[in-house]
């Protein structure tokens, strides 16, 4: 209890100091500067509010902001620069907030209608708009299966690639492999999709006598697409391990491989797990390759749930393929945004968590030095 009190007190005092700081800064400014800065901030806030409310005054306010900024740029350039760059930073923060708010707003109707049925796996698990059954369970399960297959490819292969680049490859080979992996990251997903649709789907369909769109094949393709992310993040983590630690190990007379196993990998373990997490996020969020390869049958795989040769739907392909068949305001429309909310929470969350893990590892390594 006392702890919470002191924590609150800390925050309050910090806030008070900050406010006092702002007042002091404001008091130090001369009158025109103060007016200009206030006008800029008010006008752009007004523009933003107008844009949100779809007001006809939005553009006028924007013009006014531009004019005031222009005046400020000529007469008080340093201050204007500071205010404008601050506004730009705030805009970045605002973007993520806007994305979250608008997705959730649009998703509320279907949550209200279907409630827990949306994600409850022991119900009918059926998606049927005509019968008013909205269950995202097949899509979530499809995403889970493709992601599992993908990470079985991207995880081991990615870590092996990272080890190869940072520890094994001689200099000249590293200079070839590293850019090549980065180039691999650049191949657009629709290109994989096109190859998957025209080559892989028919090939696997003929070979195994199954319908096109096997989750297994999609997982393989997605895994290959997530691979470069895993390699480059894990490679960053491995090369952050201080040379002195490895030298110490080698000085004991052990081999490079033993050094990797008992020094490099354990030290960089959190960074490597961050890489795999990020890879999982990439695999979950991957859209186009899966959209064009999958069958879009919104049911659980049969005859067994783990049948990776069957096809279903994933959260991303659900959104990409349904848009165009729905009109705003319908429950179906709202369900798309519900799927979007899941993706946002899971994938963005994974991205943030993996970033935090990575930062923590770097901080620890710095402290250890």
């Amino acid at each position: 209890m006392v702890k919470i009190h002191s924590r609150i007190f800390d925050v309050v005092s910090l806030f008070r100091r900050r406010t006092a700081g702002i007042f002091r800064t404001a008091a130090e400014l001369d009158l025109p500067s103060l007016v200009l800065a206030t006008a800029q901030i008010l006008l752009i806030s007004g523009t933003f509010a107008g844009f949100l409310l779809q007001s006809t005054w939005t553009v006028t306010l924007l013009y006014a902001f531009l004019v005031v900024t222009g005046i400020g740029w000529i007469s008080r350039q340093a201050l204007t620069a500071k205010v404008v760059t601050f506004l730009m930073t705030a805009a970045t923060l605002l973007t993520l907030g806007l994305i979250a708010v608008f997705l959730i707003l649009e998703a509320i109707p279907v949550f209200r209608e279907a409630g827990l049925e949306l994600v409850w796996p022991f119900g009918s698990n059926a998606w049927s708009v005509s019968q008013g059954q909205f269950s995202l369970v097949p899509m979530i399960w499809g995403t889970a299966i493709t992601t599992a297959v993908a990470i079985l490819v991207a995880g081991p292969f990615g870590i092996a690639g990272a080890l190869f680049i940072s520890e094994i490859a001689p200099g000249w080979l590293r200079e070839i492999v590293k850019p090549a992996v980065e180039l691999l990251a650049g191949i657009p997903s629709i290109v994989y999709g096109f190859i998957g649709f025209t080559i892989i789907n028919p090939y696997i369909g003929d070979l195994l006598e199954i319908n096109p769109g096997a989750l297994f094949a999609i997982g393989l393709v997605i895994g290959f697409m997530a691979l470069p992310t895993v390699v480059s993040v894990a490679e960053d983590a491995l090369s952050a391990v201080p040379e002195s630690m490895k030298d110490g190990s080698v000085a004991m007379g052990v081999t490079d491989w033993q050094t990797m196993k008992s020094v490099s990998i354990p030290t960089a373990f959190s960074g490597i797990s961050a890489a795999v997490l990020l890879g999982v996020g990439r695999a979950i969020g991957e859209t186009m390759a899966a959209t064009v390869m999958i069958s879009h049958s919104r049911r659980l795989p049969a005859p067994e749930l783990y049948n990776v040769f069957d096809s279903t739907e994933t959260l991303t392909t659900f959104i990409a393929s349904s848009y165009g068949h729905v009109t705003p305001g319908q429950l179906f429309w709202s369900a798309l945004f519900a799927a979007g909310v899941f993706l946002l929470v899971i994938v963005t969350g994974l991205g943030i968590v993996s970033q935090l893990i990575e930062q923590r590892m770097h901080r620890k390594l710095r402290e250890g030095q």
Partner: protein
Amino acid sequence: MSEAYQSKLVYDGGTSFERFAMAVVAGAFIAFIFAAGTLFGWVSVSGHLGNVPVANYIAGGILALGTGTGILGLLSRWGAVRTTPDRSAGLGVGVVQTVLWLVTAGLIASHTLGLGGIGWLIALPVGGFSGYLTIATREDVGATLPATAFVCLVGAVILGGLITPAWTWEPEAFDASIPGTIVIPLLTMLSGLLAGWAGASAYEGFGTRGRQNGAFLLISLVVFLVLSVLVFLLVFVFERGIFVILENITIGAGTALLLLGMGFFLLARYGDLRPATADGSDTIVSFVHLAVAILLALVGITLLYTIGVDQSLSGYAVTIEPTTDIGAVPGLLVGIVLLGIHRKSNGNPTHDSQIGRRVDESLRIGTGLLVGAAFLEVVMGAELTAGRVAILPTLAIVVGILAAGFLLANRTAALSETIDLPTWVPPLSRTVGVVLLAFIGVCLHVAITGYPFSLGPVGSITSGTLDWPFVMNPSQGLGIQMGVMPAMLGTIWIVLGAVTFAVPLAVGAAVYLTEYAEDSMFTRAVDVATNGLWSTPSIVFGLFGLAFLVPRFGGSPSIFAAQLVLGFMLLPLVLITSREAMKSVPDEYRDASAALGVSQWDTIRSVVIPAAMPGVITGVILGVGRIAGETAPLLLVLNGPNFPNAAPGVISSFAVDFRLQPPFVHVTNPALLERASALPYQLYAIITAGVGADAPFGWGTTLVLLGVVLTFFAIGIASRRHFRRKLHQ
């Protein structure tokens, strides 16, 4: 790799045991590649080779591999070979063998012997026993014999006809039939991996060095596989798409020569053409540069020959016309690029004599008039004439000939040792600039008015020397070859819009975060938000655009919405790289600037931002590469026709008008608020249309898209490498 030791202290040649181990590794590698080849359909498993089924050859090879592996282990354990095995192969190998045998025995017992679920119970002790054997025996036995047993078992099963290419396995849970034609290669690959790993371990005499060798072999194999998939993919797309793209190209030899010349010049200017003096990985780069330069020169000679014999050259549906005409637009492009390079590499000369100053002044007036006339023509969009004389070309000819005269004089003087030029002749750099400017002026004139322009028999300029249907045609129309023009323009507009929207925002935010802000809740929140945005799936951005932007801009998907959405995606990419670039500007720079009494903002403007510029630009290029290939958001916020028949006319539909209602100044552009296509979207449209007869068009589009995106990536990666290296010098 620790750099504490780089070379072996003792090297004792190769023993026959090592050579035998090497042979096993090589055999395993060959088996692996062969099996991969059968998966790709290059080799057929079900065929016959001289009355013996191919599968039997494979089985024989596998058996030989297994036996070889076994012999390695036995030789090491009981033979006279000196190796350094540990007491045990280790827990990791034990677990792998346990799982391997558990699955093998389970599948055999439950399916082949038909015991069902009980089979797996029998398999448990088998797996446990083999795991125990692996761990409990000395390393050389534990690492080889279980692997040998498995590999030999595979060989025996195939040779014995238990698994033939015609055999199928139909597991009920999977509702699929898995044929022998895929099981045999997969088993072969697994056997190859096991035998190769054991052989590599034996090569170094087991022990820690042996395990290192085995592990490195597997890791290298993984990387090799990934890279070969990359290369295979690129080659495959190239091979399928290149002839579609090149179909029916007609190009004038003069234009081709001009473009080639520019390429050659750029290579000579920025590339490294001397492999002998380069070192490290630069050697490879310079060899590539040299090869490209030689290729360009050879093609150039061919073109000159074509012009010389006056015969058109055609092959692979590409035609080269033997004209010396130069297309106006390519000429304009080349001229601007060359002028840009030229201006960047030269400073302003100073003149000490009276006449020199006068000559310089008159040149300056001439170029000023030229630029003015060109500007007027661009604004008017029509020819500028005085009486019956076209002003721009006349000016260009006069100035150009004058400058060319100086240029010639300069070159001759430089070549011979006897001639001394008077000092008033302007220096080479100046005259080259003027000649280029005149050239650009003429090209611009032709491009705007469409009148051909000729000067003597050699160099003449008309428009329309290049006809490239795949790039210049719309994707739908009566009796035309399908092209990607609308999609390409769509992508260009979207990327331009995203860059103008996002890059200033991102750079401004980076400036604030690195230069002004102190570490606080706010900056930490921005950090989290940036990372969150970076990893947010693209389809979520699309949904956001659909819910937030589309209703606010006309209510239907549009280019403008797509620009903004992709801008939001570009924002974190550029922000992160710009911040890194600004952080890596040494604090000494800022301190030095502050010590000179420069204010904080002026320091940022004239020290920090210029120093961080290369990093920022690299980030922008990589980011553009990423968003140019992005499709998912475009489905939701662009959603144009599958096969558009016209490109969006964005420039021509800008309109400004003043009214008394807010916002008083109406800037409108209906074309920006229309649905459109983009390169990745075009590819998606082809897939939704079912590919079918459009497959060649699809491969062509894929190649163009891949080319555009990977060019951005390659430039970004190369420039980052270049600037990092500069920073570390």
